[in-house]
């Protein structure tokens, strides 16, 4: 394995302690995510980024509030809409952008892409492209913690639409039955792709679904990072005592489902309204009003974010594409004989000698 930059495990006391400092730190992270996501959209348009690319635009408050509530040893499982979670968990924008670019210095070494960010040091246990796929996995990580009597908790993030899939039901039941230290977070941005919560969930008050598992739950304003942070802390405390929790954060998705979706199912007015009521500017206004944020600070924070994002692009662009020779490196962790390592153009059997001729003793791939 190449020596790649590691995500420093944040010291336990890293969180700023004064309210204003916390508020500012949240704002700073929110701006970083906003700028990063805007830059990612541009990278996609430039064909530097491929595949599906889902942004946290509009959801920054939820992302930042949640991640701030975690201890360094806690585990995070996320959906494919995971860039912000990675950044807020302390992973460098460089390594996140490099992953979006599909390069060797990316968090997942270019194997995962936008939907599959993973960092073992940050205990970010992956973004997952299969809707709901992360939910049983996160439940299992919590089972492992409980099995070993650990003090960690697991945070499992998912979207609103994800509450309708079977894995959600099976996992919440297991977590409750087995008293697992896990917080299920539903980032309710009101939409699946274009389908509304009301159009897909017979109980649109999603947090109420926890009652089917005798699980505690709460709904919080997902546009307020401080409120999310406080709710997440409560939920995590609950979880650490062996009682899983369902937390619903109500937020908005500013743009289309993924960067290629023009969101034609929204009217022009709706789009304008969304941008106007945007949580980031609302939060900035609140902080300015409370004199926590000055115009200078706003500018400085924005510039710092832009600089970090620009640096991430330079880093990503400079990072190497994975070499074809590494294609077979990650099929198995435990090597076994007869693993097939054959490129599409290669024959299954090397042109063999015929009966009577001397045989090539090369093993088939």
């Amino acid at each position: 394995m190449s020596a790649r930059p590691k995500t420093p495990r944040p010291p336990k006391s890293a969180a700023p302690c004064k309210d204003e400092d916390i508020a500012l730190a949240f704002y700073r992270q929110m701006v970083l995510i906003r700028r990063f996501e805007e830059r990612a959209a541009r990278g996609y348009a430039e064909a530097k980024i491929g595949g599906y690319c889902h942004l946290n635009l509009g959801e920054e408050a939820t992302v930042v509030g949640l991640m701030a509530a975690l201890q360094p040893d806690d585990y995070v499982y996320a959906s494919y809409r995971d860039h912000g979670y990675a950044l807020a968990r302390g992973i460098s924008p460089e390594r996140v952008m490099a992953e979006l670019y599909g390069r060797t210095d990316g968090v997942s070494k270019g194997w995962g892409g936008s939907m599959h960010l993973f960092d073992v040091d940050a205990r970010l246990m992956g973004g997952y492209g299969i809707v709901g796929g992360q939910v049983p996995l996160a439940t299992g990580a919590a089972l492992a913690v409980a099995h070993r009597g650990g003090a960690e908790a697991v945070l499992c993030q998912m979207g609103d639409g994800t509450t309708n899939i079977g894995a959600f039901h099976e996992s919440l039941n297991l977590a409750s039955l087995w008293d697992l230290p896990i917080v299920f977070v539903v980032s309710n941005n009101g939409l699946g792709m274009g389908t509304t919560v009301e159009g897909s969930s017979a109980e649109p008050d999603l947090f109420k679904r926890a009652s089917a598992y005798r699980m505690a739950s709460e709904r919080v304003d997902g546009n307020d990072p401080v409120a999310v942070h406080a709710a997440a802390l409560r939920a995590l405390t609950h979880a650490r005592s062996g009682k899983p929790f369902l937390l619903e954060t109500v937020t908005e998705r500013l743009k289309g489902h993924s960067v290629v979706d023009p969101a034609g199912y929204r009217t022009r007015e709706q789009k304008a309204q969304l941008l106007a009521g945007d949580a980031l500017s609302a939060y900035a206004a609140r902080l300015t009003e409370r004199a926590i944020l000055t115009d200078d600070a706003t500018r400085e924070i924005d510039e710092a974010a832009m600089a970090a994002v620009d640096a991430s692009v330079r880093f990503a662009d400079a990072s190497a594409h994975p070499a074809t020779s590494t294609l077979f490196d990650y099929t198995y962790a435990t090597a076994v004989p007869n693993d097939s390592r054959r490129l599409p153009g290669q024959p299954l059997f090397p042109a063999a000698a015929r009966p009577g001729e001397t045989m090539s003793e090369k093993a088939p791939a």
Partner: protein
Amino acid sequence: MTVISYRQALHDALREEMQRDADVLLIGEEIGRFEGSYKITAGMLEEFGPRRVRDTPIAEEGFTGAAIGAAMVGLRPVVEIMTINFSLLAIDQIVNHAAKIYGMFGGQARVPLVIRTPGGGGQQLGATHSQNIELYYAFVPGMKVVAPSTPADAKALMLAAIRDDDPVLVLENLALYNTTGEVPDVVEPAEIGRAAVVRTGSDITVIGYSRMAVIAREAAEVLAREGIDVEVIDLRSLRPLDRVTIVTSVKKTSCAVVLEDDWLTYGIGAEIAATISDGAFDWLDAPVRRVAMAEVPMPYAKSLEMAALPSLADAIGAIRATLDARARRA
């Protein structure tokens, strides 16, 4: 004849059947308001309303199963599963229910169901979104599986699938949606279970389906310029599998290459190769070569993805090598 896209052909087939038969309805995620992830159902909600164009929650097993149940009671649902990868969430309903109900109950209930779903890689979608797992359905008695490679076949096979009284999986392909081709003004439903010799040739038989049938035709054209005369078979139907057409061709050409977009070991091509090696045993002058995807979880990085996916160059290389292998044995 008009030249339209594969996407349009699918759309037209759905629309015509919706107009023709009130029992046909569309069920799937984001097919209405969002107009379909790949826009096959664009405009359908507006034309047919929410009772016949059912946007569903994200619940592949539930809505696919519901479509099967509705089919048991006489509707003719067409389900969209957004990509074939997600069909794994619904496979119990498809394999253990749709494919079993007619037989398990002694023929008392039919399941006139269509499942439309695209396969295809090459879009940097990563390991879970780039699989070609049509094998899972083609393997199952009780299922029918068709895999058109042209707009004309897309339309004709979709019409056939909708009018068939058994569960039919229609394998679409992300990489083909924007391809175009001639489609007759009036299309008759195709016969499910028949392959087509889409190019006659005398030197070698190349067999493909879906995207790889397109690659097969392209390879044939390239090689024709060098005087190599390739016969191309487009399987069109994976279940039933038309062994007669395949074997008949190879008896003529005496060698064959199989192109497939799935993994080699146990892939669709294994059956084709085994079928040829058995049915044309005494005619075959070289081993049947298979060109298939590298056997790895598909990486996101473009460099790796390109290395893992079978290409036109791979197809041409394999054809040449097979002709060489025959020559060595001649």
